[in-house]
């Protein structure tokens, strides 16, 4: 192969600023670096000295796409530190709010960020010229998710209604009724989405992954559960630091996570699905089967199908929660701070989101640690590219670049979270 250097500026349609650097020598990939330039914002440092009650509003600002995930991991960690649990209708409302975020965030990714890769468009706006009904369906489905956020949270981005102990205000059963009407439409649209994406063509690609996700005895995981993997991990969230480590690499502003004594692992929709298929609603399971998926899916390119199945599940679950809802007497349970460390891990749309806080007796934050899903998947993304690129070396440069971007987007990386902008450099020697 002749010596060659190819530069493609800017990988787009990801949340944040980063770059990819790939070096190829003698038909072998010798270097892959997912570089994240997103300027650091030092959340862990600026949380020090703040009150525990302020944290959900502050951590929400780490990500405009998944603020609810940050709020949920925060409140669970704080509540654990303070020795309280939130259950009943308040717990159900948190789950409903999370359904809204999954629908909104997943639909954004499926329709606007990832589908254009499969269909050969630069963006969903370009795609809309040929497929206006499909793009409209995506936008309206996304809107259905945002309507949950707006009603329960006050607004789509950075909801204001979440607090340690519950909410500031809870809706009446009657207020939720119009949402249910909208969600019935959304459930149909989500089913159509699964069928649509199942018809795409997928590269035949798989590796031996360690999938890590929450698992809960009674439900598909959002807020609670144990951390499990397909390779024997089964731990309480509070044991996270004993099993996972974050490392700094010189080329990225985001830290890389790996298993202690092991390597990269895979978080997100595919991991959740593989470890919790039995907890999906019958409708979601049936849709997955119809789409050709078994209970285990090892091809990261199928993540767009799994993400769509999760949209369907979230619509189904939201409807169930609304149906069963009874308005609680109080919008929150009282929380008294104490000197303790609290751990929280919830399933953000992109995967595990781990928080740990140490509080003093007055509820002041002494120390904070936050591990976003994209930090956890960075290493796996790089390893995918090492394995994936050699199969496509004969493709013309623009097509190979397109494939690389598509492979990265399998993970819906949120670089704003991880510390945005992917600039792709391919060097061939």
């Amino acid at each position, binding site marked *: 192969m002749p010596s060659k250097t190819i530069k493609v500026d800017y990988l787009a349609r990801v949340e944040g600023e980063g770059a990819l650097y790939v070096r190829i020598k003698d038909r072998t990939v010798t270097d892959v670096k997912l570089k994240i330039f997103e300027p650091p914002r030092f959340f862990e440092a600026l949380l020090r000295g703040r009150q525990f009650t302020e944290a959900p509003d502050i951590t929400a600002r780490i990500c405009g796409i998944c603020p609810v995930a940050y709020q949920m991991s925060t409140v669970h960690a704080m509540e654990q530190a303070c020795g309280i649990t939130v259950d009943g209708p308040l717990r159900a409302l948190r789950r409903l709010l999370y359904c809204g975020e999954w629908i909104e965030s997943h639909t954004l990714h499926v329709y606007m960020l990832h589908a254009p890769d499969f269909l050969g468009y630069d963006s969903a706006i370009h795609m809309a010229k040929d497929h206006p009904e499909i793009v409209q369906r995506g936008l309206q489905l996304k809107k259905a998710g945002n309507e949950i956020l707006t009603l329960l949270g006050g607004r789509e981005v*950075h909801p204001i209604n979440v607090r340690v102990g519950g909410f500031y205000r809870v809706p009446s059963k009657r207020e939720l009724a119009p949402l249910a009407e909208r969600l019935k439409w959304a459930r149909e649209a989500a089913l159509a989405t699964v069928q649509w994406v199942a018809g795409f063509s997928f590269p035949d690609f798989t590796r031996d992954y360690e999938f890590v996700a929450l698992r809960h005895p009674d439900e598909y995981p959002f807020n609670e559960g144990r951390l499990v993997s397909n390779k024997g991990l089964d731990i309480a969230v509070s044991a996270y630091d004993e099993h996972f480590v974050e490392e700094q690499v010189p080329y990225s502003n985001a830290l890389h996570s790996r298993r202690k004594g092991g390597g990269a692992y895979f978080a997100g929709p595919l991991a959740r699905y593989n470890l919790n298929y039995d907890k999906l609603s019958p409708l979601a399971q049936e849709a997955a089967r119809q789409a050709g998926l078994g209970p285990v899916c090892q091809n990261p390119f199928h993540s767009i199908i799994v993400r769509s199945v999760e949209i369907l599940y979230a619509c189904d679950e939201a409807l169930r929660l609304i149906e069963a809802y009874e308005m609680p007497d109080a919008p929150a349970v009282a929380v008294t701070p104490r000197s303790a460390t609290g751990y929280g891990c919830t399933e953000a749309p992109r995967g595990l989101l781990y928080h740990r806080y140490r509080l003093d007796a007055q509820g002041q934050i002494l120390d904070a640690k936050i591990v976003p899903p994209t930090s956890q998947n960075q290493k796996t993304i790089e390893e995918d590219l090492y394995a994936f690129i050699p199969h496509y070396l004969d493709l013309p440069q623009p097509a190979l670049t397109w494939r690389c971007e598509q492979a990265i987007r399998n993970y819906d990386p949120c670089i704003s979270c991880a510390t945005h902008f992917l600039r792709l450099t391919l060097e061939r020697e």
Partner: protein
Amino acid sequence: MPRQRKPKLAVWKFASCDGCQLSLLDCEDELLTIAGQVDIAYFLEASRAVVKGPYDLSLVEGSITTPHDAERIQQVRRASRFLVTIGACATAGGIQALRNFQDVQEFLALVYAKPAYIRTLAHSTPIAQHVRVDFELHGCPINKRQLLEVISAFLHGRKPHIPPHSVCMECKRRGTVCVMVAHGTPCLGPVTHAGCGAICPAYQRGCYGCFGPKETPNTASLSAWWRHLGIPPSRIVRAFRGFNAYAEAFRQESEVHAKQND
């Protein structure tokens, strides 16, 4: 009449959470209409297709926190006919401007094992501190209705209709009972720029100032009222040091109380 070319819209990101540019994609009912009216020439979160500048309207999200970004904003300004900042990061430095009150090296060491790898400035600063800004849209996040108003105003060559009064006016219009008067809940509404629709009081909590200072805010008077409610100075400092901590009026007020003991 000859058909005019569509105006070119660009969306730029600096240090931020993406939430404000997401507000454009959250205009689910209007997005395709906007795309029909303007040429979305540079918007990396939505499209890999990039049209070269100059751009008729640039929306800028995020604050300046690195030497590289301090250079890049100059290029953005040169390539833009109108430059509008969107959100608290771009207009006031954002939550990350909390570093401006502390030692950034200490922050670095708390988050990164090898701080030397990270290039960052000591301060997080608003865009207007670096280049001329034609309009500033407040909010953490911005309100998408206001964003649509700003885009259509600039495309039609008129001034955007974005009232600079306080959140209190929006509460009154919404018919929300004053949480501070009725329940003694501390609220930043009287000094905070309108635009959110007074959501927090409608959800029975006090405003936390995410739209930044209103025009001519009387922060000293509000702080005195908070003191009447029994709020200690340390909490007043934290209230003003939120998402718009480095906005002049909020910064000054926080510094007054930072000198006092609880």
